[in-house]
């Protein structure tokens, strides 16, 4: 049998780097989630809207993103855009790529929510005198997002985990920090085990925060459970 003796002593000196990496991942993923949600919402609205052209364009964007690898999308933003004269830091490029990516996935989720709103709901609101915008906000969008919020939350946690891939362009985040530590300590196994544990903790953290946001935003969910 192969024997391997674990040695975690490097943690004594490197734990601040892990913490820094975790914090950078929180910032990177948090920013991407917030902006990605806005993009997803806008795209979902356009896609379920009346304009065939706009809806088609958004549809094309969604399909392209969903059928290409995230890593390639990141490379295009980071290495491609400078050729057009747009110089981006690795972190900015990472956020842009993650927002574009999660905007596409999120818009499909929200669109499903929008389309699940029954026609009778809208007619009832029309009969009560609400105008188009009021109906869209109160009767379509809010319940649609409420309905798909669990799926959306999972998508956002997935985004946080996927953000590790931005280490490939050396964006500052947890996996990049780990790569650095690994190259200095040569304890690959231990380093990545620890990184996995930290990602696990981050997943729990993101889930809890997203859950709490849902509790505040969607009162019914909270009330009907008690």
């Amino acid at each position, binding site marked *: 049998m192969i024997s391997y003796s674990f040695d975690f002593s490097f943690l004594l000196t490197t734990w601040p780097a892990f913490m820094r990496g975790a914090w950078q991942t929180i910032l990177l993923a948090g920013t991407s989630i917030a902006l990605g949600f806005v993009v997803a919402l806008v795209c979902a609205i356009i896609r379920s809207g009346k304009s065939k052209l706009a809806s088609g364009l958004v549809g094309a964007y969604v399909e392209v993103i969903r059928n290409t690898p995230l890593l390639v999308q990141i490379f295009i933003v980071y290495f491609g855009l400078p050729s057009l004269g747009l110089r981006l830091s690795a972190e900015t490029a990472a956020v842009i790529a993650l927002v574009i990516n999660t905007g596409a996935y999120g818009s499909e989720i929200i669109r499903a929510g929008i389309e699940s709103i*029954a026609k*009778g*709901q809208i*007619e*009832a*609101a*029309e*009969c*009560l*005198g*609400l*105008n188009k915008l*009021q109906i869209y906000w*109160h*009767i379509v969008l*809010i*319940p649609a997002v*409420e309905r798909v919020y669990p799926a959306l939350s999972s998508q956002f946690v997935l985004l946080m985990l996927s953000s590790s891939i931005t280490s490939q362009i050396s964006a500052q985040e947890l996996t990049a920090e780990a790569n650095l530590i690994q190259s200095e300590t040569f304890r690959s196994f231990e380093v990545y085990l620890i990184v996995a544990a930290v990602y696990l903790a981050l997943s729990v953290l993101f889930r809890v925060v997203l859950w709490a946001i849902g509790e505040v935003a*969607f009162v*019914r969910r909270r*009330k*009907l459970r008690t």
Partner: protein
Amino acid sequence: MSVNEATGTRPRNEAVPGAEPIIVVDNVSKSFGPLQVLHGVSLTIERGTMVAIVGRSGSGKSTLLRCMNALEEINGGTIEVCGNKVSMGDRPSVKRLRTDVGMVFQSYNLFPHLTVLRNITLALTVVQKKSRAEAEAIAQKVLAMVGLADKAEAYPEQLSGGQAQRVAIARSLALSPKVLLFDEVTSALDPELTGEVLKVMEDLAREGMTMVLVTHEMAFARRLADVVVFMHQGKVWEAGPPAEIFADPKTPELRQFLSSGL
């Protein structure tokens, strides 16, 4: 029809001798693509009366009701509600129409994400720009009218069908409409729950609300309607006071409809 039932008409019938038309449907046609659903329908509804529209499934009853409330665009003829011509394209006229007319649906169409109270106050605050407090006072009042004062904080999924439908009626009432349209509002309910909804509608009728209802509740129509309209193949086939319509049908179609066990 027995003598007893014939005398069961409401006192307000005499009080309002059909003076003031509130809805005038004139020669209205409506098609869905190649399918013509309404063929030159004409109908006048007087203020303070209850008009019951009966007929077989598919005869165009719902479509007629929906045309009255600009949920469907008509292809010919005119509809006037409270003196205003109904036209889906004309936004100010639709807006006026919505304040004059309330509508209650078979499937309740309560907003599932909002409490009963918020279902009722939504239009009061968002459309009529009333303060929250004022809107809630109105909501409490109409909830009491339908016997559901204790359900203000409930969510629609916590209600029985009968309760949900009464909330839907209260939601329409809160906006003080001049006319209420009811499209088979008891058809989705278990038989033991229809009574509580019909009771609310009867109360409204007695208070003089103008009501147009599409219904299969023949006993209810016979007892409370001022006018019964029998629709057949997209036309007003027969119309008149319930005593005439039920006791003395003129056409074989109506006779057959009445004897078909409805």
